[in-house]
């Protein structure tokens, strides 16, 4: 069926409609090696809705204040529905695993 359609189009000399991507494009899943630690479960439940862990990992080691602000940015700017308690636990996790001691 699909073949006949393409053949017809070729017959008419209309090549334009013939896409090279004829099937679904699947983006691969990349395993990002995030550290396990206290409250990781809260991070997993809240921080994967909108983007991968890659976003957290590429930031490097940062002070607690940096992580606190990032979590707040997710809630205030991007409307992430995360409770105050969970925000605090996530900040603890990030400061512990990806902190620089400050």
């Amino acid at each position, binding site marked *: 069926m699909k073949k006949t359609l393409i053949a017809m189009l070729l017959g008419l000399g*209309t090549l*334009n*409609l013939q*896409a*090279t*991507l004829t*099937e*679904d*494009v*699947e*983006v*691969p*899943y*990349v395993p*990002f090696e995030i550290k396990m630690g206290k409250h990781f479960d809260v991070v997993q439940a809240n921080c994967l*809705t*909108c*983007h*991968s862990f*890659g*976003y957290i990992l*590429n*930031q*490097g080691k*940062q002070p607690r204040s*940096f992580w606190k602000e990032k979590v707040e*940015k997710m809630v205030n*700017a*991007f*409307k*992430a*529905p995360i409770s105050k308690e969970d925000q605090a636990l996530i900040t603890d996790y990030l400061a512990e695993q990806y902190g620089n001691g400050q």
Partner: protein
Amino acid sequence: MKRRTFLKGAAAGAGMTALGSDAFAAGQPIDNRKVSTIPFPQKRPLITYSDRPPLLESPRYVFANPITPNDMFFVRWHMPDIPTHIDLNTFRIKVNGLVSKELSISVDDLKNDYEPVEVTAVLQCGGNSRSAFKPTAGGIQWGSGAMGCARWKGVRLRDILDRAGLKKDAEWVGFNGSETAAYYETPNFIRELHLDEIGDHVIVAYEMNGEDLPYLNGYPVRLVLPGIYSDSWVKMLSNLTVTSDYQRLFFMDKAYRIPDNECECQKPGEHVPTKPITKMNVKSLIGYPTNDTKLYHNSYATIRGVAFDHGAGIKAVMLSFDDGKTWHEATLGDDFGRYAYRGFTYDFKPKKYGKQTIMSKAINRAGEEQPFAKDIRWNHGGYKFNGIDVVTVEVV
């Protein structure tokens, strides 16, 4: 109280100069990230920051070539939900709002009913090289590879707007791509341009380097804004809405903005009025040799790289082998137009064994030149880094 804080700030500023300018300035962007072992659709393996949304960076060696091959071109999406399939039989670009006639245009219509135009232009993320800024500035910590240069073919955006007929009050055009947020309250990635910004060089492109746009670079059509950072080069463009007023949308009003002062700089935590990043500043990158390459003593190595700016055009690229004390003019390659990369080459004969730095500095026809990285001042979003490029090789 205010005055005391001010004085404290001034003292800190003075201290900063005495200590060297590291505090709120820039160093070199991170350059040792490895390409992933997982290739994305239509791409060779690239440096991979995220899979959802896909964020892929070109490694440095790609800048030895003045045209970036499609399969090595960087990728940057904002939202995780990108359609997995585009059916050209049903895909339409809708034009609505303050127009006399609403349009619904297929890719085939674009190719058959409008005059085709081509432009070779650099696409660079405003946050390219962000990892150079200390302290860490907000956003993805790109190295230098969130940029590329391609030959784009499509139709003038003006021609589309003319066909729709702008009404008297029309001032702004909002552009929407087909990607959507995962959570319904997250603002969508919509961009706006004022009609004054839409010259004849702005195109809606359906071809990149003679091929269909790669899926991850915005198949089937994207906006191309030569000379301007990539934030408004909307991918999988599906909707144009003409309005009389600016909409104050999040990704226009909060993201991609820099301090609206002469140095375009601020101290961390300092709140200042902002403006959009818009025009690209002059920049160059060395594509060969890359960091840690071994060169042979007394044997010529051809240094290759690219330089570009916002469209004034590149006048010269200077190289230094003594940390910026003396400069040597490189040979410029073919001119693909004022918005394109200008390739450069230089035959270098290493005379000294051991570590050797190579610096490149571009100068444009407006007389603007790249500053040393240490002289670039901080901004909260880590935008517009254009420090003199440095690679360090070993001469054996």
